[in-house]
Each structure stands twice: as C-alpha cells, then as structure tokens.
C-alpha cells in the first residue's frame, strides 16, 4: 500500500507525449497544476476545475479524461498525451489541427486543447463518426466562441469523410 502524508512531496514519474518526465507533488496537487507548474507545459488549460467545462481534457493511458479531477500522485507511471504532442516533429499541424484551422473551429482557443485531445481519442475509437456522434462527444466541452458548428465540421473533415 502506498501512503503519502499531506505535506510530503512524492516523486512522480510519467511519460508525456513519449518523453519520460518527473517532478514532485504533494497529494493535493491536481494533475493539471503538475503539468502546468511543475512541468511548464501550459498547453493543457484549466477552466472550471470541477470537471464540467472540458478545457483540461487529456489522454491518460489511452482514455480521454479530465485532468482536473486527477491528482498527480495517482498518475505515477502512467502515459499521458497532451496537446503539445499533436503537431508533427517539425512543428507542422497534424490533420485534426489543420482541419480546426481551415474551418475556423477556434477563436479564443481556450477550450481548444481539451477538444483536440477528446477528438483525437474519439476518432481513434470511431474513425468514421456521423455528425450526431461528434455532437454527443462534444457535449462534454464548453466553447463560448464558435457555437460548435465549425468544430463539428472540422472533426468531420479530419475523419476524411
């Protein structure tokens, strides 16, 4: 059994976008804050911090999920994918990101990192979704700029349909 005292800093090592990284976390440190403040990876955004808005969604061990509802100490040894890992190594946007760009699927961009990660995993599970399936997946995100239509179009385009 693992036990970590409230003020104890535990070493947490995890794989983020294929790279092994490590840092220290007290039990109450949210995974979002670990990524942003300990790892300096600001791609993952924090919106509501109670699992409703979807901005912090990342892929943990191949599951798209809220990173504000996880503690860093729970994730020792796990494999994470965040928005920083989407672009090609030379910095070129990947298919999904390009589709967002071409369809005007973002304006302020605050919700975008989370939506890109949800959509990445969603398209992996369901490579040829219909528009209703995309909308249902998107119901787990809040976007205050686009009205969602452009996002639906972008994900549909990225699926090659």
């Amino acid at each position, binding site marked *: *059994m*693992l*036990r*970590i*005292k*409230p*003020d104890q800093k*535990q070493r947490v090592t995890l794989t983020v976008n294929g790279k092994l990284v490590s840092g220290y976390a*007290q*039990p*109450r440190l*949210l995974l979002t*804050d670990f990524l942003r403040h300990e790892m300096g990876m600001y791609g993952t955004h924090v919106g509501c*911090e*109670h*699992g*409703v808005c*979807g901005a912090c*969604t990342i892929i943990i061990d191949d*599951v*798209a*999920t*809220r990173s*504000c*509802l*996880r*503690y860093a*100490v*729970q994730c020792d040894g796990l494999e994470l994918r965040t928005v920083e890992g989407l672009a090609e190594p030379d910095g070129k946007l990947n298919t999904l990101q390009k589709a967002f760009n071409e369809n005007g699927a973002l304006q302020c961009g605050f919700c975008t990192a989370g939506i890109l990660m*949800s959509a990445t995993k*969603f398209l992996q599970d369901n490579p040829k979704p219909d528009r209703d399936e995309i909308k*249902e*997946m998107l*119901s*787990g*995100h809040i976007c205050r700029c686009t009205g969602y239509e452009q996002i639906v179009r972008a994900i549909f385009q990225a699926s090659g349909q």
Partner: protein
Amino acid sequence: MKPVAFEYCRPDTLEEVMELLTEFGGDASIISGGVSLGAMLNMRLVRPKALIDINHVLELGNVEFDDATAITGALVRQAAAQKMTSLMSGVPLLAMSLPWVGHYQTKSRGTLGGSVAHADPSAEIPLTLVTLGGSVTLRSPSGVREVAARDFFHGLLTTDRRPDELITALNWPLRRASTAYAFEEIAQRHGDFAITAVAAEATVAIDGTLANVSFGLGGVEDHPIVADTAEFIGRPATRDTAKEIAEVVADIVDPMVDLQANADYRRQLVRVLGSRVLSSAFNEASAVREAA
C-alpha cells in the same frame, strides 16, 4: 479551487481498505473515478483527512452473474459497462439509462459504484437500481451487508453507508419473462444531471393485464423513489392506464425546487414523461408476452 491538504492512501487489497477505514472512518473519502468527488474536493465541499484511492483494488472491477442477478464490482466504469454486451442484454434498463449518464470524457472514468455512493438525487444509475429493486453490497471491518437500493438512498448526497463501510458491489436483477423497460429524462444539456428522469419496468399477464409495475422517479424528490402503484396491478396494460398512473403519481410527489425548475414543472414532467415510459413499457411487455 484546490482541495485541502489530505493524506493519499492507495491500498492494493480489500483488507488494506478495511485497515484504512478502521483508522480514519468518516475522516476519509473513498475515491474511484473521482468524477463527482473530485469536483466536491476541488470546491472544498468535502475536506477529508485522507483520500482512499481504490483504483488499484482490482477485485472491485469484476462483473459476475448468478441465476437472477448481475453483480458489478464498485470499480466498473460507466463506459466499460456500456460496452459489456452480457450486462447490457441482461439488465436492459441499465442499457437504456447509461446513454443519459455524463459525457464521453467523464464516463471513461466514472464508475457505477461511485454514482451510487455519491447519491445525487437526479443521477440515472441510482434511479435504475432503485426501479429494478436491486441492492448494494457494503463491507466494513466488522462484516458484509446487503441493503436494498430502495432503503439505501436517504436524501441529497446521503445514503445508508456508514463511515467505515465501502461499497463493494451493486446487484442488478436480470431481465424477467414478459417484462419490458423504458427510460427517459429532461436535462438542460444531454449528459447533464436530469431535471427529472423516469424509469419503468412492467410485466404483463396472459390476459393482458398488469402483473407488476415499477415506476421510478429521479430528480423529483431528494433521492430516487419508486411510486406506489399497487392499486393498478390487474388493470389493462394500456395507454390510458399509463396516463392515469402518471397523473396520480404526479399529484402525490413532493418535488424539489431549484434554479432549474419549480415544483409544478417537475410534476408536469412526471405526467408527460411518466405516461410515455409506462406506455412504452406496457406495449413492449405485451408484445413480448404475445411472442412467448
């Protein structure tokens, strides 16, 4: 917001969970998916001394069947349950209610047991368990007990679970002969908690009358309830009977009032959605009966 400082405990076995519950009792919160508890922690609505993370207690992730029951371990995730065809065909009402639960990104982590432990009055999983007459298995350092779901939910976020108990499993009655099910709800946004959710189970006798009816209501009172429909047993399984039941029940319930809806609106939802699910279950059950 950020949670208060707590000790993090990650047991690997049920015995270790029991040790921790003996040590901390009500000062600990048990976390599985964390979809509801995580939010409560971040908002400091709960301030535990210790967080007991049961995600490594693998035996809590099993699904088993006996002759009349599907037994789902506390850690079975909502998305995984939905993909399990034996469970979905064995417990059709759960297959009907799960699509209304949460979102793609929360169901991947949220568990069946966690939703029951959290006891939101409008949550679909507790309502389904109550409507079917299922039960909850609890384990404490002093032993194991099983509580009928209808006695388990006491009120808003309040259950029969004692501070030193862990929910280990949920027991779902399997589909019965000549029986059909229906589920519906109204929420502000698909996947959000329901303003009102209704569930129905109906069994039709050879002569086309009702042999059994269970009419469950979520989001109406402060915990999921099953309406008293005893006076309707033996009545024809028709649309008129469905409408009458929904109207009678809508007049007796004592609905909650919140920012989303007043009592009259919730009563009206019980009438409209109730008559719809009952009528659908009656029709379907009659069809199953005729085919048999």
